[in-house]
């Protein structure tokens, strides 16, 4: 009798296992990673609303909102500026111009508090409430332009990666000679919990994204373009599939897993190719762009609109009414939160970006930037400030790491100050997704150790170059 029970049970398990495996087989993904609760239900059904700028509002527009050299201010205190006018000119190749988000008067060009909590140069504009466009901005038909002209337009519009990394797009679209690109991958994964900005963009403006992709394809001269979307956005997948019909763009639903939206992990999931250690996506023939970037490219080329606004999700347990907003670059966080009904309960933490990779903001006065994909407010009760415990060697971090490094070993070496040992353990391959820190039962600040190691290693390399 008992034997039969056991047999039945094991049969049921085997079936379950097969089913589970079968489910995974349908959707592509990468190795490693984990699945934190996505909490997208707060805002995924909310249509994008415009967060208004009233007369007299102060917009603080930082001159360094991108990776690379900061732009240089080209306006002075007292100047009148129009919406879309250039207020900062790029310095060097890896740099982009900065534009006024609205019309008004420049009331200061001085260091102001930025997202990272440091004071960096910013242009402060007092809005006149008219929101008057610069008449010099004009669009063009992308089919009549050469790839280089398209790239010039993208640079002039100051377009950077909208996923949060803010790498200048024109640089990504200019692979060095000899590197053959055959794949354009569009990142619509949005694997960060809470964020629904890309999801809403794909649902509400699919044609903008598709047109942008066609322009990107023309610039790179590639045949294949794939949009990767995580499986928890069925409406977006459906909308994009409809919009892409007959355009030579494929939609690839991906398994629900963090960090599915990380560049290297997305490339692996979609193409099966691996970016070599220390290499870039172009080393395996791929260019990855966010769907938001594609929409911005379309606006820049067709209508001449620079990157002065973006979609961001305001969510979290301490927001009265979570929303998806169309925000102007330079608006303070407090304005966005106010538009969403203000703070609910006791505020414990403000995060710019997603909860996994975003940065904690020091105050509500810091402005949003081109990389702000979301503002998350968490109540005091939800924030864990537990002291770090001893490593129990469970290996969860090693299993979760999508870059296949050993977080626990590296942290152990860093505790002893052994930066060289950490370098040997390939800490430079860390993509800083924070999966290890999230899963660690002992609350060890693993990622912080890696950042420390990486900056020390970079400093060492710079020193060696000097000598």
């Amino acid at each position, binding site marked *: 009798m008992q034997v039969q029970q056991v047999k039945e049970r094991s049969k049921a398990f085997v079936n379950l296992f097969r089913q589970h495996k079968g489910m995974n087989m349908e959707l592509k993904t990468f190795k490693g990673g984990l699945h934190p609760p996505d909490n997208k239900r707060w805002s995924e059904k909310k249509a994008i609303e415009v967060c208004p700028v009233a007369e007299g509002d102060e917009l603080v527009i930082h001159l360094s909102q991108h990776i690379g050299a900061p732009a240089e201010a080209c306006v002075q205190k007292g100047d009148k500026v129009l919406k879309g006018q250039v207020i900062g000119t790029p310095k060097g190749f890896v740099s982009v111009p900065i534009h006024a988000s609205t019309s008004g008067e420049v009331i200061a060009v001085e260091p102001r508090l930025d997202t990272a*909590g*440091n004071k960096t140069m910013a242009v402060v504009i007092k809005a006149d409430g008219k929101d008057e466009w610069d008449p010099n901005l004009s669009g063009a038909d992308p089919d009549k332009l050469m790839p280089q002209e398209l790239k010039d337009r993208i640079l002039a519009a100051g377009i950077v990666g909208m996923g949060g990394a803010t790498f200048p797009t024109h640089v990504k679209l200019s692979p060095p000679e000899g590197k053959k690109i055959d794949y354009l991958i569009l990142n619509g994964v949005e694997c960060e919990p809470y964020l629904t900005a890309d999801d809403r963009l794909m649902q509400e403006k699919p044609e903008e994204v598709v047109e942008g992709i066609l322009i990107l394809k023309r610039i790179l001269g590639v045949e294949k373009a794939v949009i990767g979307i995580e499986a928890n956005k069925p409406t977006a997948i459906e909308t994009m599939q409809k919009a892409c019909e007959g355009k030579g763009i494929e939609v690839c639903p991906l398994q629900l897993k963090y960090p599915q939206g990380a560049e290297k992990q997305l490339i692996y999931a979609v193409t099966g190719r691996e970016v070599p250690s220390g290499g870039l996506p172009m080393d395996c023939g791929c260019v990855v762009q966010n769907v938001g970037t594609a929409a911005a490219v379309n606006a820049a080329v067709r209508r001449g609109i620079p990157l002065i606004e973006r979609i961001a999700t305001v969510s979290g347990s301490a927001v009265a009414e979570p929303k998806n907003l169309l925000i102007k670059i330079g608006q303070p966080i407090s304005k966005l939160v106010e538009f969403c009904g203000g703070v609910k309960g006791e505020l414990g933490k403000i995060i710019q970006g997603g909860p996994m990779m975003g940065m904690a903001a*020091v105050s509500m006065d810091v402005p949003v930037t081109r990389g702000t994909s979301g503002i998350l407010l968490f109540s005091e009760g939800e924030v864990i*400030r*537990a*002291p770090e415990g001893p490593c129990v060697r469970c290996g969860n971090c090693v299993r979760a790491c999508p870059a296949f490094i050993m977080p626990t070993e590296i942290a152990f070496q860093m505790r002893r100050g052994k930066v060289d040992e950490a370098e040997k353990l390939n800490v430079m391959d860390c993509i800083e997704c924070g999966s290890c820190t999230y899963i660690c039962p002992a609350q060890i*600040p693993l990622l*912080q150790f890696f950042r*420390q190691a990486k900056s020390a290693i970079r400093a060492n390399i710079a020193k060696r170059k000097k000598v």
Partner: protein
Amino acid sequence: MIAAVISLGGIGFLAAVILGFAAKKFAVEVDPREAEIAGNLPGANCGACGYAGCGGYAKAVVAGNAPPNLCTPGGAGAVAMIARVMGVEATAAEPTVAVICCQGDNTRAQDKYKYVGVHDCRTAQALAGGPKACPSGCLGLGTCVAACAFGALSISPEGLAVVDREKCVGCKKCTTVCPRNVIKMAPKSATVQVLCNSHDKGAVIKSYCQVGCIGCQICKKTAEDVYAVDNFLASVKNESYDQEKAVAGMLKCPAKCIHDLAAADTPQEEKTEEKAQ
């Protein structure tokens, strides 16, 4: 049996001959003075002299590239030893000690956020410029304590680094690891020091710290030879230090950020002196 003894003994003898020959032929000439100096230095390899360890310093001294008074941990004894070995006259350099130029512990200075994470000032500094509202105050996470090879540094219960002036040998290791440059070196005899590191203006400092230098220039006006004020921060001119004048300036300081460190070190002696008087 005998064959084994003979063969092994033969191999041993042969090896001894080769080694003996090699020792004569390839002998490395070492200046005996270098060995003597290296042997008598403290051996902490702290690097305060600017050379790679005590051996490196001894080599540099013998080669005539380094003066004999660079070893701060060794103090006057080491200088005398080197002078004797080298046959030169030398006077000991004034010993220096580390001074924590901050009094803003967690009872007097405010934080701008709660820091939870790696217990290292450099890591904390990378997060929005450190949890302390003051951009240049001591973070109190003990990076300097870990760097000190002589056990001269500790973190007070209020979260501020403290120097043991007796144990400190002036090797400057702590000054290189501190991300905010709070630690400065001063001659041991210059006991009156300005314990603030912030160049912010008075009103700004008052918003986050009770004991910051407000740059009011009163100390400078009282004793111009001893105090200098640069960009809203007073400092003691160690080269023209004068105890009496320094104390006069210290007593006038309205922000209470100038202190006599010797007085703090030896409170008991002071008391006995007072009693004697």
